[in-house]
């Protein structure tokens, strides 16, 4: 019998301080999806640091300066560390598309994700679709807590802790366009419509063909959608709303240093009212500790820039005063 076997590559992106998370994601993939190749894209340098090699995770590491990003120095100069970390995402896709002809599907996961199931639902969707994205929410919040529906609009309705593509003309065009956008406009500037890589992805369904907005409730479960998803454990398997298999959980904004908080980015979900998620976070904490989170977290990323200090503040103010006065006259 003829069986088509599509090769799938999964990658994540982080700096050395997040290697425990990337390690944990890798372990979950190895357990659930051993056929998939896993690569940690490192937005950092290894050889500048005094690293205990025995603690390095047993996965391929691909440093960002090895993937030939055109004018990478310019990007480092423009972007702060958050912006840089997200701006390189499409460039990694581009690198894999061009340098790994054996690979058909490429999946990105944020490092703070654990995969809980065999990703066959996803790979079968990638037979039909070119691009798969996940929405933050599939039902309204109906409350006034943080983050709310307009915050989600402002930063992007799709969460870009996950995106999957199939090698195709449409996906290649998407990656090309996305690289172009993130070269200069991977900023956090909400008043001008910019929120790193994520907000740009809002265009995917309008610009490209066969984009699946996957509403499967087991995908990308995180603080932003726990209002519509209840977790339960049955026979050592995790389920959402009783009978939907949990595919992957995203521990966005969770800090081991503040284990009583679900996420630093929100105030809707807490452990007291949501005992169902407590074991999922216990599990995560333990895995991170086993994977040396306390060791890795203190490494400083090579791409962090010193903060710009604005000097001569008073001189600036006085030099601007005459024209500012004039502007005020015209305004009134």
């Amino acid at each position, binding site marked *: 019998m003829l069986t088509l076997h599509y090769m799938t590559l999964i990658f994540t992106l982080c700096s050395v301080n997040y290697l425990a998370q990337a390690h944990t994601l890798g372990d979950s993939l190895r357990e659930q999806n051993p056929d998939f190749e896993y690569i940690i894209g490192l937005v950092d340098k290894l050889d500048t640091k005094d690293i205990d090699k025995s603690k390095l995770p047993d996965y391929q590491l691909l440093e960002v300066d090895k993937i030939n990003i055109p004018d990478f120095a310019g990007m480092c100069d423009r972007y702060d560390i958050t912006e840089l970390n997200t701006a390189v995402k499409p460039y990694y896709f581009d690198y894999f598309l061009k340098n790994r002809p054996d690979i058909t599907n490429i999946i990105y996961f944020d490092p703070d994700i654990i995969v809980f199931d065999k990703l066959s639902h996803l790979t079968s969707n990638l037979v039909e679709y070119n691009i798969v994205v996940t929405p933050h929410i599939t039902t309204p919040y109906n409350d006034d807590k943080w983050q709310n529906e307009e*915050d989600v*609009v402002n930063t992007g*309705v799709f969460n870009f802790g996950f995106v999957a593509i199939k090698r195709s003309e449409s996906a290649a065009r998407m990656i090309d366009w996305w690289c172009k956008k993130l070269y200069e406009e991977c900023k956090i500037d909400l008043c001008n*419509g910019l929120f790193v890589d994520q907000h740009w992805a809002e265009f995917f369904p309008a610009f490209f063909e066969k984009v699946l907005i996957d509403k499967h409730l087991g995908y990308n479960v995180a603080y932003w959608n726990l209002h519509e998803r209840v977790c339960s454990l049955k026979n050592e398997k995790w389920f959402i709303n009783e009978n939907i298999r949990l595919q992957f959980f995203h521990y966005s904004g969770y800090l081991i240093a503040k284990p009583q908080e679900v996420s630093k980015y929100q105030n809707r979900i807490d452990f007291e009212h949501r005992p169902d998620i407590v074991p999922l976070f216990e599990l995560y904490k333990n895995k991170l500790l086993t994977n040396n989170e306390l060791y890795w977290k203190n490494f400083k990323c090579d791409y962090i820039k010193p903060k710009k200090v604005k000097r001569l503040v008073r001189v600036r103010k006085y030099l601007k005063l005459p024209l500012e006065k004039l502007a005020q006259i015209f305004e009134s």
Partner: protein
Amino acid sequence: MLIFTVCSINQLANAIVLGDSVKTHHPDYDFQIGLVDKESNIPSFIQCPYPITEVNSLNISGFEEMSVRYTHEEIVADCKPFFAAYFLQKTEKLIFIDCTTVVFQSISFVTDILNQSNIIITPQLLFANAHPDEKQILNSGIYHSGFIGLKKSEETTKFLKWWGNNTRQKGFKDMCKGLNADQLWLEHVPAMFDGVHILKEAGVNIGYWNIPERNINQLKSNEKLYSINYRDRAFPSDYREKLNNYSHKKLSKITPAYGFEDPNRPTIGKTIAKKIRSVNKLVDVILDKFVS
């Protein structure tokens, strides 16, 4: 089949011209106007050939607060979900079209799409790399709220209820907070509701936001030019002529009864002030160089 628009009296001539263009190609469709204004303020010199539904007759809960909190422009946009729910009681299929639009040929293909879907929304842009500043569109909305198709269904009712709740409470134009009256809420629609069709038809709802990527002459010669929306730009002369048949100049001066004048509306003074301040930014550029 019913097509409707929403406006205040100052845009009534636009709405009538839209109605005329709809009726030219669809004499069998109903065309109705939702009026966010007082019908009694319509001057007697104008006879509107299309049925008008006054916003007061909808009994929108919280409308008085909306009128105090929103600008004229915001409140017209924010009443759209309520008018849509009202008109859907009278018809199986409904299309909303911005009052500043002219329809150029039959749009019956839209009603065909509604056989298979509940909600049709229209992207502002369809082609990557064509608009000179794509982030402006990202900021104001992937989807444009000037052309929407709806089918009577439970899902559509759910959608309109949710949309109306948001436009009632958070229908401001404040892009820094992710708000753009009725429009930015549409970002959630494909993820939140079932049977959503994203209409990728280059000849529909052409406006200043997508002119860089649309070739009107080519669309015309391919018989694919469906509608142009003249919103927020100087009207071309052929459109102005049509408007003048309905006393547009006089009507446009009538202050709407609901909402207030937008204090942020650009004036000449504000534009000059902005230019002056941009000169002042050079001080920073020069000093930054000097310091480093």
